[in-house]
């Protein structure tokens, strides 16, 4: 690991505000402190440790799967979590879990990164593919449906694929690399979409505790800038190419807005998360009831889960089935919760959100 490539310090270089000895290497967005590389590693890891401890994310002896895409967040998460697990004796059995959506030139390349991570961090890897689970790759789906709603399919399928992979690995928990910027972005998106159900869930550090496999986000308060700086300084091996099918324009606008806010006032990211946390839903609001899909048994508030509806559409040659507020729907005919279900918040289209 080459960590000394830089030129010797130049006159007037600022010193680290923590150790007062070494040259500062970055400005922390969270605190605006100038800090050197070594002190940054310490505080970065320690803050994540504190988040894990304070929120009691894990219990000793648990099997934990890390959703690994090969991107920066999950790569840094795999590195930091395996380090903390050793350092603080969490007693966790860690696994890497990757989803192969079947996207040539994108996921096949990023999976190579995950395979290297498997060796670098000594964590067993399980890859679960859309083709095996659903009989379709994203390449095949895009051929049928085009580039309009492909992210809906992918988002719905991925969520379920991760759960199925986690069940296969018999893990107690699934952790994902969602960072503070992602969560702030999702808070905004859920407000813009009026999706109250997701708004109240998206800031929770742990979700799905009522379901088979709870998910948690140890990077909930970790800035993307610090994750990328950490990966850069440590020369971690990650993959950074945008998905070839995903302009995902709507999320892109929210993302750009968050980044603009961060430039003016970096604290804005934590403030938005805080606002999201403080949202309270009036007790009279009708929330969707959680049940199970009649077809595949996955959790669903409808007769069929979203993945089964989408899949049915694909297999019947009606790929618009289940997209948006279309008139044809499997769930409309025999609705389990009465006729006003179609207007409830559960019918909002937000398949691309992973929260």
């Amino acid at each position, binding site marked *: 690991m080459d960590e000394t490539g*830089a*030129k010797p310090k130049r006159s007037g270089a600022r010193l680290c505000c923590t150790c007062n000895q070494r040259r500062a290497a970055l400005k922390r967005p969270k605190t605006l402190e100038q800090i050197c590389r070594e002190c940054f590693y310490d505080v970065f890891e320690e803050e994540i440790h504190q988040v894990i401890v304070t929120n009691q994310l894990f219990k000793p002896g648990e099997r934990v799967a890390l959703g690994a895409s090969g991107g920066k967040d999950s790569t840094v998460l795999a590195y930091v979590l395996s380090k903390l697990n050793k350092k603080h004796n969490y007693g966790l059995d860690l696994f890497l879990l990757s989803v192969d959506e079947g996207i040539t030139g994108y996921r096949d390349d990023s999976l190579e990164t995950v395979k290297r991570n498997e060796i670098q961090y000594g964590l067993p890897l399980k890859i679960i593919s859309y083709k095996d689970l659903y009989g379709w790759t994203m390449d095949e789906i895009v051929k049928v449906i085009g580039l309009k709603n492909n992210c809906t399919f992918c988002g719905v399928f991925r969520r379920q694929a991760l759960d199925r992979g986690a069940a296969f690995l018999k893990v107690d928990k699934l952790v994902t690399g969602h960072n503070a910027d992602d969560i702030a972005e999702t808070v905004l998106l859920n407000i813009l979409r009026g999706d109250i159900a997701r708004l109240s869930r998206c800031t929770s550090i742990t979700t799905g505790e009522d379901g088979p496999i709870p998910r948690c986000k140890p990077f909930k308060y970790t800035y993307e800038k610090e994750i990328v700086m950490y990966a850069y300084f440590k020369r971690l091996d990650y993959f950074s190419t945008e998905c070839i099918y995903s302009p995902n324009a709507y999320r892109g606008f929210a993302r750009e807005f968050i980044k603009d806010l*961060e430039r003016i006032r970096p604290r804005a990211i934590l403030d938005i998360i805080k606002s999201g946390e403080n949202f309270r839903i009036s007790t009279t609001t009708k929330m969707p009831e959680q049940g199970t899909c009649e077809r595949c048994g996955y959790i669903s508030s409808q007769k069929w889960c979203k993945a089964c509806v989408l899949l049915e559409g694909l297999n019947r040659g009606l790929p618009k089935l289940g997209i948006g507020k279309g008139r044809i729907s499997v769930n409309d005919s025999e609705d389990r919760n009465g006729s006003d279900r179609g207007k409830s918040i559960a019918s909002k289209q937000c398949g691309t959100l992973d929260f």
Partner: protein
Amino acid sequence: MMQLTLEFGGGLELLCESKKIHNVNVEPQNGSDKLIMKDLLAWVRTNLIKERPEMFMKGDTVRPGVLVLVNDCDWELSGQLNTSLEDKDVVVFISTLHGG
């Protein structure tokens, strides 16, 4: 003439023919004898960025979400656009905007 090493990462390399490291010679701009980051960004945009310049720049600075390091130091500590460059400096641009 100033010799600089420029490195593009986090997906930004795709905007300059998938080449991550560029060893370049840049002249101080506007008849001045020094080069600042503001001048370098304009130079990079003209000479290295081959597609989608909006992924790299917004206005006269980098697009929010692009990290800049001069000699492995966050440019937010050295004055951002006003950071002055010296011969043999290493400037790194990393996009944080690609998936996690």
